[in-house]
């Protein structure tokens, strides 16, 4: 057990701190504006210093450093401390880029990785369909060969940022006769292609939250056959690279949320005394602290496994399940602490922390479902982690 970072990382930490002391992010650089020169300049500056796209080869627009997990940890810690988002939370960098690096052609890598990292091209993910949620491989959106092109018809749902994205990485069925996992292809689709209609999908969180979801309707959408990533019919395997990246990116900062909750309890008063004075609420806060500390140190354990190149086994599979439920439970206590006022929303008079806890509650619930539902997670834990037998398939009627 050794919780110290090697001395050679001290310099690196100093460099990151110096960068953050010198440079501040521009005011508006998020995804709300599809093409934003401020965003591109800010992300390019981070790439130049190696704080974003650090391990992506220079040839593809990255910084080109050797992977070093502790450097990643230090960058995350220092950016968090400074209250600055590192890089860009978006599906292009987190999901498409690793997929292209693993499966793309040289031309695809050259063309897309750099602009994606710099925020010049925003991507959306065309996976889920109304009839294909947990059973994603049953997706029905079809792509039929037509000359040099595919003609796409179908519907996608839960497509965040589809209203602003220039591109979509989409799963379509190209071989309708093949078995369900073998007939899928992974395509790169420009969102300005005729036949694409994007409709906003209003979620339970209503006005709050920067992730707006959409439905995407595709009618005779024409895309060149050359836009397939990997081999035709191997889209399921390729998508699984991406899904793995999605799950590992769902590791939330439980300790930070817990500290915010504790501050709320010290501040929020009822009957003239702070919520923290209530033994009942305090007991709930302490229960949550033990869980948050567990997940924090569990994260250190997972990091150690990665550093050593060891598989954490079942201990790694439970992270998403536990973290998402913990976040929901922390929001639940915050809402109870605020009592009647906990229900206030939409900038109402007396609303606390701009509705943060209501939003956190609903988005935590969304994350319990999204990226593989809790129930699918439990199947994975039981089958892959504990070796329990799969459920027998029903005989086809």
């Amino acid at each position: 057990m050794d919780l110290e970072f090697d001395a050679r990382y001290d310099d690196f930490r100093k460099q990151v701190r110096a960068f953050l002391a010198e440079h501040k992010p521009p005011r508006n650089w998020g995804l709300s504006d599809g093409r934003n020169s401020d965003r591109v300049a800010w992300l390019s500056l981070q790439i130049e210093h190696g704080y974003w796209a650090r391990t992506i080869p220079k040839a593809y627009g990255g910084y080109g450093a050797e992977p070093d997990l502790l450097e990643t940890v230090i960058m995350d810690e220092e950016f968090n401390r400074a209250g600055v988002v590192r890089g860009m939370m978006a599906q292009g960098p987190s999901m498409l880029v690793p997929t292209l690096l693993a499966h793309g052609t040289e031309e695809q890598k050259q063309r897309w990785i750099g602009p994606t990292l710099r925020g010049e091209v925003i991507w959306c993910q065309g996976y889920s369909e109304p009839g294909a949620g947990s059973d994603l491989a049953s997706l029905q959106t079809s792509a039929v060969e037509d000359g040099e092109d595919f003609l796409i018809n179908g519907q996608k749902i839960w497509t965040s940022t589809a209203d602003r994205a220039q591109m979509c990485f989409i799963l379509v069925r190209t071989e309708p006769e093949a078995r369900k996992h073998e007939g899928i292809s992974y395509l790169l689709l420009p969102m300005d292609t005729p036949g694409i209609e994007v409709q906003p999908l209003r979620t339970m969180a209503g006005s709050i939250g920067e992730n707006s979801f959409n439905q995407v309707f595709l009618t005779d959408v024409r895309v060149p056959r050359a836009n397939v990533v990997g081999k035709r019919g191997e889209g399921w395997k390729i998508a699984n690279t991406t899904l793995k990246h999605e799950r590992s990116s769902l590791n939330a900062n439980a300790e930070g949320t817990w500290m915010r909750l504790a501050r709320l309890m010290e501040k929020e008063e009822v009957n003239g005394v702070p919520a923290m004075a209530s033994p009942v609420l305090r007991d709930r806060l302490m229960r949550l602290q033990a869980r948050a500390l567990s997940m924090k140190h569990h994260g250190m354990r997972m990091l150690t496994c990665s550093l050593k190149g060891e598989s954490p086994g079942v201990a790694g599979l439970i992270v998403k399940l536990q973290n998402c439920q913990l976040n929901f439970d922390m929001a639940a206590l915050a809402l109870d602490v605020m009592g009647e006022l906990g229900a206030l929303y939409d900038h109402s008079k007396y609303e606390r922390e701009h509705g943060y806890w209501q939003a956190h509650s609903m988005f935590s619930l969304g994350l319990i479902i999204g990226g593989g539902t809790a129930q699918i997670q439990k199947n994975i834990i039981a089958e892959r982690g504990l070796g329990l037998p799969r459920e027998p398939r029903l005989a086809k009627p």
Partner: protein
Amino acid sequence: MDFGLSEDQLLLEDTVRSFLGDKVPIDRVRELREQDCPTDRALWSALAELGIAGILVPEAQGGSGLGLLDAAIVSQALGHAVTPAPFLGSAVMAATALAALPARAGSEASEWLAGIASGKRVFGVAVTELFSVREGAGVRLQDGKLSGKAMMAIDSHGADFVLVALDDETLAVVATDTPGVSLTRLATVDATRCTAELVLEAASPEAVFEGAGRVIARTLDAGRIALAADALGACESMIAQAVAYAKQRKQFERLIGSFQAVKHMCAEMVGELEPARSLLWYAAHSFDAMPEEAPLMACHVLAHVSEIGREIASVATQVHGGIGWTDEQNLHFWFKRIANERHLLGGPEWLRDRAATLQGFAPAA
């Protein structure tokens, strides 16, 4: 940065687990529960030879001089095997207290530590009244003699000495064969631990240590972390037994482990267990390396393991169905060990209240 067990610690874990699997299989535990005190002194001597009884005793007194994380690994193995042994009282709590005292205690404490390490002397610990006074319990010192009673004294029945906390600042050592000292075993649901009532009638203590507040606090931290490790080890075994059973039991012409209802119970148990294991490692490490963090971590890890332990013990039994509720199936040994441990050294509500106080969230009692 290396958050995990070292090669030596993995070897220690392996050694203790295979020793216990070999020498104290569950059939032997069944035999031991029929005795007045299930602690088997021959077994304890054998564990002492492995360096287990003196794991926290300094090398100068013949111990292994290891840290609390090492002790937690052993404790976890003992819980995993539901082994009756005075590890918590003698090897963890008494050893921690006595090793922290020698400057004042001199040769006596040194001798006791050597006795603990050799396994020839076993210490029980009476501290319940620091958190919970019932039935008019409490021990007082008057004219150099001890009188009163201490309830639920850990590992004390069959012990040679008992370390008694008179209050937050005062410790005493009594020899159990001294006139005026009587120990009565209190039968608990858990047949694997020798819990006793200690009654003192003007008994002469071997020693009294005043101004020992810091020593008592460290002793409780160590005890709580080791106790959490024991319960975690018991949980680990219950989950393994439930998973193994789900892989061989058939109902409705299917292995029950193929039903999602059963699968999800198993996934939920392991989902609670693994992060608690990480917390335990950190808590034990903090005791050795970051003592200022240890009191909070000790409260949290024991309270948390107690909560998830109750759930795991129940769910693992349910996976077994009716057979899990029989005496013959043995699962109840683990269920009861976890159930009893929940109430030692504070109990979850008390521990969380203490955790809040330590952080300035609650008024000090």
